[in-house]
């Protein structure tokens, strides 16, 4: 059959675009299908794209004047928050100014659209310039199966056929469920709602506010009062002339504590530290999207099947152990590995799981699954009440005393620390936590 593709990629998010780029560069005949009007139209992240895989897809991407990304990160901050105070670990280094950057902030509506333009360029330069396509405004309704093997997809009344399908549909993975790799109902336990506002400033004001230089940027994560006792955390990232300010909050916990994500976001914004930052800003967008927690218990049963690979957050590949959310870099790497596996399958002429299981092996050997497996305890620890409430309160209490200078004798720091511990937790609790943290980090 002439019009059969080597591969159909479902979803023009980070994972699907990364896979498509590799397929185009390897002269494969493929179809990328995205339900949005353009790639990125439906996507929300914080978001920092960590690591360096982008340079594999678009070499020297930083040389482009308006390269789809907002700012590179050379300043990182992790903030503990109580009702009135913030206590931060703050790290800034010109080391991070070197290219390739180790993290760039992106706005998905712009970034995905830009990356999809790059994929189109790669298609145009390939042997299948006239036969590979990026099709937008199309929703895949069904993965077509024949004798247990994927043979294509269905959208409305139309069918498209292929030797293989990469499902890169994101966390709300309806097709992964349809092909039986994930249960039909995924409970709220390990799922969070990410919610954010884009707040605009005059660019110079923003650069002064955050001491940015050229295209440098800052990332800031928050633990504690930010989420008012609901499991999760806050984030603030600098874009060109806006900031992304938001929360990720546990859905099950909101259900049990009767809390709304949008009210929690307003709560976060009333914190004196945050209020000072966003003063004079103008809110230009409000958005929300589900995000997984990085808990391996929420992962699909398997990530391949005859003719099928699952990439990105459709496979629940994500890590959030407090210091960063890593979903886009995992999506990118898994998309790349999925495409490599399809390219090998084409060479072998075998798209069955006998070949496609190599995807799982590649992923297991990559930093993605190594980190997911090694940091499960850290993921669990972050979601305990001790880490969500007691530690931030204790740290801020200590900070307040440590930095207060009165006209009276100052107690030794150790005494201050012990006092703070006693007020918010017990020494035993903290020893246990310290022990767990040592093992898990």
């Amino acid at each position: 059959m002439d019009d059969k593709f080597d591969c159909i990629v479902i979803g023009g998010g980070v994972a699907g675009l990364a896979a498509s780029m590799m397929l185009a560069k390897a002269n494969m005949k493929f179809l990328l299908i995205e339900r949005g009007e353009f790639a990125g139209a439906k996507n929300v992240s914080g978001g920092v794209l960590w690591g360096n895989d982008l340079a594999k897809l678009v070499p020297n991407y930083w040389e482009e004047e308006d390269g789809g990304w907002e700012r590179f990160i050379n300043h990182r901050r992790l903030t503990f928050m109580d009702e009135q105070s913030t206590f931060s670990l703050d790290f800034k280094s010109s080391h991070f100014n070197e290219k390739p950057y180790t993290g760039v902030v992106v706005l998905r509506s712009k970034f995905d659209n830009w990356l999809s333009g790059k994929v189109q360029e790669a298609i145009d330069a390939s042997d299948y310039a006239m036969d590979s396509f990026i099709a937008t405004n199309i929703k895949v309704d069904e993965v077509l199966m024949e004798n247990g093997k994927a043979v294509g997809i269905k959208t409305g009344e139309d069918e498209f056929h292929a030797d293989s399908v990469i499902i890169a549909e994101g966390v709300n993975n309806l097709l992964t469920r349809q092909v039986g790799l994930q249960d039909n109902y995924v409970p709220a336990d390990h799922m969070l709602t990410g919610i954010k506002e884009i707040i605009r400033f005059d660019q110079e004001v923003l650069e002064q506010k955050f001491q940015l230089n050229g295209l440098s940027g800052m990332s800031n994560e928050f633990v504690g009062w930010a989420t008012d006792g609901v499991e999760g955390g806050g984030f603030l990232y600098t874009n060109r002339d806006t900031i992304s300010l938001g929360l990720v909050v546990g859905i099950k916990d909101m259900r049990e504590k009767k809390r709304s994500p949008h009210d929690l976001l307003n709560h976060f914004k009333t914190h004196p530290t945050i209020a000072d930052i966003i003063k004079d800003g103008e809110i230009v967008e409000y958005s929300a999207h589900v995000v997984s927690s990085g808990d391996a218990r929420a992962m699909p049963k398997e990530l391949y099947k005859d003719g099928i690979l699952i990439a990105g957050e459709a496979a629940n590949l994500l890590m959030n152990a407090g210091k960063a959310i890593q979903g886009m870099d995992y999506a990118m790497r898994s998309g790349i590995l999925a495409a490599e596996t399809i390219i090998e399958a084409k060479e072998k002429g075998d798209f069955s799981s006998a070949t496609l299981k190599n995807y799982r092996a590649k992923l297991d050997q990559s930093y993605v699954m190594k980190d997911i497996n090694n940091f499960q305890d850290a993921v669990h620890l972050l979601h305990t009440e001790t880490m969500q409430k007691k530690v931030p309160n204790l740290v801020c209490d200590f900070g307040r005393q440590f930095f207060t200078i009165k006209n009276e004798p100052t107690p030794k720091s150790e005494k201050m620390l012990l006092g703070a511990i006693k007020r918010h937790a017990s020494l035993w609790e903290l020893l246990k936590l310290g022990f767990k943290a040592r093992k898990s980090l």
Partner: protein
Amino acid sequence: MKLLKLTERLGLVNYRNQSKSEIKPHIIVDTDICNSGCPHKCTTWVCPANCYTMDEENKVHFQVEDCIECGTCMYACDQGAVDWNYPDPEIGRGVNWNFG
């Protein structure tokens, strides 16, 4: 900074064809389940677009117009009342993020 109410926030969302009321909803909620057996009715507070509301008689109602396709209700409802899907792009309905 002035905090925005949810309606003001939703006013900043770029929806396509939001007013096309004849369109088949992409999410179908069996409100009989909501109003007969649901012990918490949590979607009325976890939905970030307030698509689920409760009237004076504690009855749950659902409207899809403001939906921002986030997925929260698909996980939050553990009662099997939510039949969740993406809007059909052919009709051109749903969100188009300006920033994302």
